[in-house]
């Protein structure tokens, strides 16, 4: 009789201790509700939900780790939040349709993919003045950089291509046909390969970007979508949107090494600092789901707003 409550208690304690070291917050973007949810990761409850802007999809920390940047695609703005409290600090206007955003590794460039307006825009990361607008065919969605910050790579969701832009000349240098509806994109730690989630199929496309050719396919699950690194410099997680699973991929062997349940249309993810739990947005369930990577169980689901997309744990695993 006591086994069940004990199990809950122990997992709750584990979760609590895991998050104790740093501020216990998770920030979630409810994309279809125009709101932001703040979750206390210790109590695992939503403590705040407030309007943030139209179509907030992705968020990321500034390179100095002071702020979180929320990209409000349909409000043409970036919202800067205090990274540890989730409070709104500043709004930068005239960022046209920022869907996915990112600083180059050398912090020289800030690039924004404009999914709806079919463009990639390059900004000065200090002033956020636009330096160049580059039209691209149909729905540029996610982006990744080369380790030397010379190139940015963009998935084109509706033309099934990968585009490479030279950041110095600010021109598209090449394009490569890849799988159907490519989404999330990630550079492997050795800088050799790009991993691309193929949303319209069930695999990750591995691209040898220096040779500009397809290297291999890693079969994962239907609706391969987005990535987050475990933090050991070796493994990465991938959400399979239509399969309702998460795949763990070894970035050296380029193989799937494990797989986990992920109900409700998993999208963006983040890993706790102790690398024990994976938090993910469950798009269709309007929830955040917490996966215990050891027991492979969903230990908790937290109701949030409609179509939760981006998620950020203030206390997270290393980004490597």
């Amino acid at each position: 009789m006591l086994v069940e409550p004990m199990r809950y208690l122990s997992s709750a304690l584990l979760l609590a201790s895991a998050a104790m070291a740093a501020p216990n917050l998770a920030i979630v973007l409810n994309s279809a509700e125009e709101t932001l949810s703040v979750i206390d990761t210790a109590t695992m409850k939503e403590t705040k939900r407030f309007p943030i802007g139209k179509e907030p999809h992705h968020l990321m920390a500034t390179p100095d780790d002071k702020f979180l940047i929320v990209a409000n695609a349909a409000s043409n703005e970036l919202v800067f939040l205090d990274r540890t409290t989730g409070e709104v600090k500043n709004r930068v206007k005239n960022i046209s349709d920022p869907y996915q955003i990112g600083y180059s590794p050398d912090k020289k460039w800030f690039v924004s993919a404009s999914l709806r307006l079919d463009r990639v825009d390059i900004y000065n990361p200090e002033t956020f003045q636009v330096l160049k607008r580059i039209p691209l065919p149909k729905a540029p969605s996610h982006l990744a950089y080369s380790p030397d910050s010379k190139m940015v790579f963009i998935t084109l969701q509706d033309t099934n291509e990968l585009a490479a832009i030279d950041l110095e000349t600010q021109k598209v240098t090449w394009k490569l046909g890849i799988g159907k509806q490519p989404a999330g994109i990630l550079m492997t730690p050795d800088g050799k390969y790009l991993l691309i989630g193929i949303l319209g199929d069930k695999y990750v496309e591995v691209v040898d970007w220096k040779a500009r050719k397809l290297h291999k396919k890693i079969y994962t699950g239907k609706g391969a979508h987005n990535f987050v690194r475990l933090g050991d410099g070796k493994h990465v997680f991938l959400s399979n949107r239509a399969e309702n699973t998460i795949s763990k991929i070894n970035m050296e062997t380029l193989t799937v090494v494990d797989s986990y349940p992920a109900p409700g249309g998993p999208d963006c993810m983040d890993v706790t600092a102790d690398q024990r739990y994976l938090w993910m947005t469950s798009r269709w369930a309007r929830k955040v789901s917490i996966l215990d990577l050891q027991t492979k169980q969903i230990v908790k689901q937290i109701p949030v707003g409609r179509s939760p997309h981006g998620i950020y744990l203030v206390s997270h695993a290393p980004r490597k």
Partner: protein
Amino acid sequence: MLPDDTGAEGQTVIVEWFNIWHQWIFENIVQPMLYRMEWMSFDELAYDWTHLFLLGALEVVLLWALIRPLELWLPVERWESRKATRVDVLYTLLARLGVLPIFFFIVLTPAFDWVNAQIRMAGIIPPSFDNLLLYVVLLDFVDYWRHRFEHRFNIWWALHAVHHSQRQMTFWSDEREHLLGQLIAAALRAAVGLAVGAPPATFVTVTLATAAIESFSHANVKLSFGRIGDRLLVSPLYHRVHHAIGIGHTGRTMGCNFASVFPVWDVVFGTANFTHAYLPTGIDDQLTGRDYGEGFWRQQWLAFRRMAG
């Protein structure tokens, strides 16, 4: 619309139950279909559409359960056969179950995306206008003028006559409208939505609420909201006068009682008619034998013929 600290506790059981259904149907029926058709790019759109479909279906069932007994209890007209009302059921299902809305969305999207891109590239961002009541009022105001022009201009009336040609008016008749007319109405509403930047949830709530009022105002029910009530909200009596043969589509302004939700527009712009009589519905020339069609396709086709003159 949302309190600051909504959580699991803030959601009612019904909403929770509905969301579970929404998720189940999307994940087990809609998404697998998208995947097979290679339309995964549209999964977010389809998720929202599934939501609309379920809400629409629920609303149709609820309206039927609430209004149909009233029509049986307090009918204005009793008919030998209800055959003529059946086509209106089809119109209602097409519109309220999202078949026409998704079609209009696909047709309108390229134009709206283009406008949206121009506006946004110019740095103009519509405000986030999240006041439900103000939004209803604004949309109703636009609807009033659209409806008035539908009666005022012959070419537009040729389409809107489909709506008025029903001589057995029931709560199903609200959506009986020419497809082109519906497309124009949808474009206008979407333009308002875009201009004021209403959040999607607000747009949905408003659509459902006004649809319920408009269905009810077409019901074959002997009911008015009283002297004051009829001036506040469009009642079955008030809208029946708009459909009345010889009244609803005559005179200098080509009719009366154009309002969909709030009669105040008719009062302000001098088109209100508070006659307390439950009159037969239809178009004058139907009495002299003009055919507006009984079936769906014939109604659509004849409207184009009228437009051509």
